[in-house]
């Protein structure tokens, strides 16, 4: 005989909670099924489920619009619906619960590892995607506007914007949009985890990550820490009844922002500063050595965190050498910075079915950003699936960087993307340079298709 459990709850806790409970009990009686329904309403928790009952139950129906302390059901099959469904379709819910696969008989232990592992991963992915999807418009708008601004600069025959011109204004606007990228990524990851209270610490964590040059990986880390800090505070801070109102408007905001801020500055920030210094020293030491290896390393660094410490170090290193009239590392760095967005665009073209519609659209934009040497255009893809996509980018960029060095290509300007190709004498060995970028792009695309999950994850 399968035993079912149910929990009902609604925000007001007066009517719906009890109607859903009665409805489920009635439907169970008609089906001759044993069910116990816990109600969490205005009069408190009634008919509470015991750990023993939870362990023995076949499945649990949760018909609720509020928190019902779901953690205690970890590892058990759960049918989760809004409270209204408990009133409306109790019979169907019972059938669904009965048809759930029972968990292992050791369910007395609160979790079965495999099950919760999958759930954890999906949850992680859900939070990450919430950040990425909110960030995407900023990348697209900012990237395209910056790319557009280049047109103005290059018609003047240079690579720098004339101060006070429309081009300079566009560059500022695009930069503002791009500048919000890491902040919004972090903010909305945190928002996804903790709801409204997560937004403030997430945004602040994002600003700090951006300012310290931690890039989008720093933003992801900040978002997750901020979200879980806020979530923990909401759950565990207990206030005397009279001061309960202060919790959401004063206590949680101040503490969550303070905690994420201190963590970012002292725990995340210090190592990043140290890392930047070490990387720069390391590159400087090996600079004169093996040119092809240097190209590959610079390339991989450009693609690894796309705007983070590794990327910045490689870029700054190459720009620094321009002053010494060494032009080859600059060329390698730009080639490597162009291939991630170009490669992802090519991948979306080759294998349309492997990407969601949104991703294919983002891929088109990425092509323009890639041509403009705006590596950040690839971030939405990298952030959505870092473990698989970032190594793909790194391989492609390493190839592009190594080839560029091997052919002895040189770049005399610190940025500009495809536009700089049209400036006379800005690039040494132009044909080989284009070839390096093209090969890097193809390698990136093939790597992405090789490593990416088969079906788009929605």
């Amino acid at each position, binding site marked *: 005989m399968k035993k079912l459990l149910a929990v009902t709850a609604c925000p*007001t806790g*007066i*009517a*719906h*909670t*009890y*109607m859903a*409970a*009665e*409805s489920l009990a*009635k439907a169970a009686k008609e089906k001759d099924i044993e069910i116990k329904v816990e109600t969490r*309403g*205005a*009069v408190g928790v009634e008919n509470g489920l015991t750990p023993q009952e939870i362990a023995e139950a076949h499945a649990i129906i949760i018909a609720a619009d509020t928190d019902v302390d779901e953690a205690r059901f970890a590892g058990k099959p759960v049918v989760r619906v809004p409270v*209204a469904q408990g*009133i*409306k379709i109790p019979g169907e819910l019972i059938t669904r619960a009965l048809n759930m696969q029972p968990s292992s008989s050791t369910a007395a232990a609160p979790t079965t590892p495999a099950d919760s592992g999958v759930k954890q991963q999906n949850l992680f992915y859900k939070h990450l995607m919430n950040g990425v999807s909110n960030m995407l418009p900023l990348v697209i708008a900012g990237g395209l506007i910056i790319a557009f601004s280049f047109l103005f600069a290059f018609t003047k025959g240079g690579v720098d914007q004339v101060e006070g011109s429309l081009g300079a204004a566009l560059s500022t606007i695009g930069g503002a949009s791009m500048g919000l990228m890491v902040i919004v990524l972090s903010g909305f990851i945190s928002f996804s985890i903790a709801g409204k209270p997560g937004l403030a610490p997430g945004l602040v964590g994002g600003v700090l990550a951006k300012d310290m040059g931690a890039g989008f990986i720093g933003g992801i880390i900040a978002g997750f820490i901020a979200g879980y800090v806020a979530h923990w505070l909401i759950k565990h801070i207990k206030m005397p009844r009279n001061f309960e109102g202060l919790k959401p408007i004063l206590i949680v905001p101040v503490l969550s922002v303070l905690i994420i801020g201190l963590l970012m500055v002292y725990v995340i920030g210090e190592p990043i500063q140290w890392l930047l210094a070490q990387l720069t020293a390391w590159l400087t030491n090996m600079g004169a050595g093996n040119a092809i290896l240097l190209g590959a390393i610079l390339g991989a660094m450009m693609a690894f965190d796309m705007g983070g410490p590794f990327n910045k170090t490689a870029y700054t290193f190459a720009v620094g050498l321009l002053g010494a009239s060494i032009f080859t590392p600059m060329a390698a760095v730009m080639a490597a910075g162009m291939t991630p967005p170009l490669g992802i665009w090519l991948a979306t073209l080759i294998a349309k079915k492997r990407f969601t519609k949104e991703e294919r659209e983002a891929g088109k934009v990425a092509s323009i950003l890639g041509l403009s040497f705006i590596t950040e255009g690839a971030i939405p893809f990298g952030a959505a699936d870092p473990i698989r996509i970032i190594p793909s980018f790194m391989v492609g960029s390493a190839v592009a960087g190594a080839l560029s060095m091997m052919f002895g290509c040189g770049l005399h300007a610190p940025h500009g993307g495809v536009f700089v190709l049209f400036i006379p004498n800005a690039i040494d060995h132009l044909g080989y340079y284009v070839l390096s970028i093209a090969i890097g792009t193809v390698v990136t695309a093939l790597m992405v298709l090789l490593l990416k999950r088969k079906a788009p994850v929605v």
Partner: protein
Amino acid sequence: MNIRELLQPESIFLPSSVSTREEAIQQLAEGMTAAGAVTDTADYVRAVLAREQQSSTGIGFGVAIPHGKAAGVARAVLGFARFQQPIDWDSLDGDPAQMAFMIGVPEANAGNEHLQILVALSRKLIHDEFRAELLQASSKEEILDILSRNIG
């Protein structure tokens, strides 16, 4: 506390001839005011309508349970209306409401005795026989009888 302390004849409308959800809520609130339970009709109606905005209280089976908590409510109170023409209440199952129980709760909550009664009422409303009795009742006194018998 029993049901007669919550529901007075003044806030029972049998039948009610209103034709919209808003009119029904207004009428029931005025009835509660007449019964002395509501001191600021407009304030209370605002609270009830705000709750409806969140999500309809039309729970299906031809029943709606509008409710609100407001400073303009002096004591916990219940209202009942059975509509001549069923009213569209944007309900869960799409069917119009044949009757409505409206609930008023003071801002500063005084105990939860009244809650127990509302809980019992909510549970009862799921059962067909109980609703059928309410639909057939022909006087205010009969409604009160049915409720006392089933809820206490």
